[in-house]
């Protein structure tokens, strides 16, 4: 039986490695390039940047096509007019109205151009008492405070649950009871008790993150290798030194996983909480735009939320690679 082979490709590949640009288009990593079987081999599959770009561009193109492309006859394509105004003019004209082929009207979904313009208008003039960046800052600051207090309260509780049978017995029931409650289910209660405003939003975020941090801290302590702890005691460490010098750094990988999960949950909870629970912030901005049909403001808000969510995760992953370089290597 003959083994299928391609002698030319072997010669071509051994001459030089792929450049930066080539890596953007190549199928897998350098080792996997020589593999003959890759279907089902997960180590040969990676996220190809070029395809990420294609899907992003595809989304924007779809949006553009759905809200604009076929739409209006030439005489209504006056670049001076906003999309909404143009469509309003077109709707008033019987001939235009008949040839109007836009998939989604501006009341169903704003066009790319309207959103783009609205983005700059929101940055400069603002909406609902603050600029876009003002609302963003308020929301981010709430997430930071919620995460801070959630960690400050949650990590010691989690550590005590990993270190003492009494503490584990004491905290087990409340943690298991409160953890499955979606924070938003508590929003009406929080609004009644704390009123609408900053305090409610931050307290809700503490509730959202504390259970995650407790579980992360507890599993961080439990992940410690017994021989590592025993080695520290043999070397003369006191209990306090074992806690600070061994258990705490050893739990960093689990704590970081907790941070990443908590940030994601907090961000989602916050925006939803702000819809009704706060007078400002990105969620409040979106909610205020709804009754006056400012869908462009809604869409800008959604895009900013998406971008910030991705940015926070990238920042945490970067921090993780700097702080815990041994993760997955020991």
């Amino acid at each position, binding site marked *: 039986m003959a083994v299928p082979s391609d002698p030319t490709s072997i010669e071509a590949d051994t001459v030089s490695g792929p450049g930066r640009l080539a890596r953007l288009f190549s199928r897998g990593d350098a080792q996997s390039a020589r593999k003959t079987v890759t279907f089902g081999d997960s180590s040969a599959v990676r996220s190809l940047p070029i395809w990420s770009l294609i899907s992003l561009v595809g989304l924007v193109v779809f949006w553009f096509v759905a809200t604009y492309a076929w739409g209006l006859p030439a005489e209504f394509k006056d670049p001076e007019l906003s999309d909404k105004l143009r469509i309003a003019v077109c709707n008033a004209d019987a001939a235009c109205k008949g040839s109007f082929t836009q998939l989604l009207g501006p009341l169903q979904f704003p066009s790319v151009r309207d959103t783009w313009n609205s983005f700059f208008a929101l940055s400069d003039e603002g909406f609902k008492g603050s600029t876009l960046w003002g609302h963003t800052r308020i929301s981010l600051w709430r997430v930071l405070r919620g995460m801070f207090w959630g960690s400050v309260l949650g990590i010691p509780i989690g550590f005590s649950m990993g270190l003492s049978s009494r503490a584990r017995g004491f905290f087990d029931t409340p943690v298991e009871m409160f953890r499955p409650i979606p924070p938003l289910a508590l929003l009406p209660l929080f609004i009644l008790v704390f009123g609408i405003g900053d305090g409610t939003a931050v307290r809700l975020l503490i509730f959202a993150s504390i259970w995650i941090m407790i579980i992360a801290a507890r599993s961080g302590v439990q992940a410690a*290798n017994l*021989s*590592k702890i*025993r*080695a*520290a*005691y*043999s*070397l*003369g*460490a*006191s209990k306090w*030194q074992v806690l600070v*010098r*061994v258990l705490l*750094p*050893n739990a*960093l990988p689990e704590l970081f996983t907790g941070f990443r999960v908590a940030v994601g949950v907090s961000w989602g909870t916050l925006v939803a909480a702000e819809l009704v629970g706060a007078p400002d912030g990105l969620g409040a901005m979106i909610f205020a735009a709804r009754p006056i049909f400012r869908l462009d403001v809604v869409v800008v808000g959604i895009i900013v939320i998406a971008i910030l969510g991705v940015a926070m995760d990238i920042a945490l992953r970067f921090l993780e690679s700097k702080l815990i*370089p*041994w993760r997955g*290597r*020991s």
Partner: protein
Amino acid sequence: MKDLCVNDVDMVYDLPNNASVHALSDVSFELPAGRLLTLLGPSGCGKTTLLNILAGFLAPTRGSVTLGGKAIRGPGQDRGMVFQQGALFEWLNVEKNIAFGPRMNRANRASTKQKVAELLEIVGLGGFGDKQVYELSGGMQQRVALARCLANDPDVILMDEPLGALDALTREKMQGLILELWQETGKTIILVTHSVEEALYLGDRIFVMAPRPGRIHSDYELPFAQQGLSVDARELKASAEFAERRDEILSIIWEMEEEIMGRQEAV
């Protein structure tokens, strides 16, 4: 230098289903300072339990252990421990791992630094001080563990299968290093191993232990560790005397295994 004294040590583990395991039964021995003792035996013979009792991580159900006349009641700096693997601190580099003991004691920084530099040379890691431990091979990590344990200048070094996770070639090199350290420092070393050859080559005294209940089956005084300091390791291991001892101990362990199997079949 302190002698180690073990008197009538019994260790019984209670199991949740009301059964119990007799991990050690009537273990007694005296080990003068500066000896290299290897513990050998099939799994379940209590050699790691004995080591943990000596380290102070476990309290025996009966009997006592003293080092230099002082009873052992918990872990202490007079007894250093080297584990099979995974006991290094990944967030510290090689130097700081070795300096961990002195730092916990708030020792003088300058003298610690000097000591660390010396230890790095002794274990053959000169120039690796600022490397991260997770960047090192398994053999080099065990060198760091040895140096870290020596930094506190313990009287006894306890090793729990320290070379068990290493490949054959690295293992041979590390055996040489342990013999050298033993000679240079004159410390008492107790080493648990699964390998008969390693136990013979390193131990100037060997306990062959038997399971159920865990006990010392036979106690050998051997010349090979002393010879190993001057004679080539391969030559020594190939000698007729070495081979004879190895066969003798192997047949003891074989008999134990067969007895265990027989008992299980009877049940």
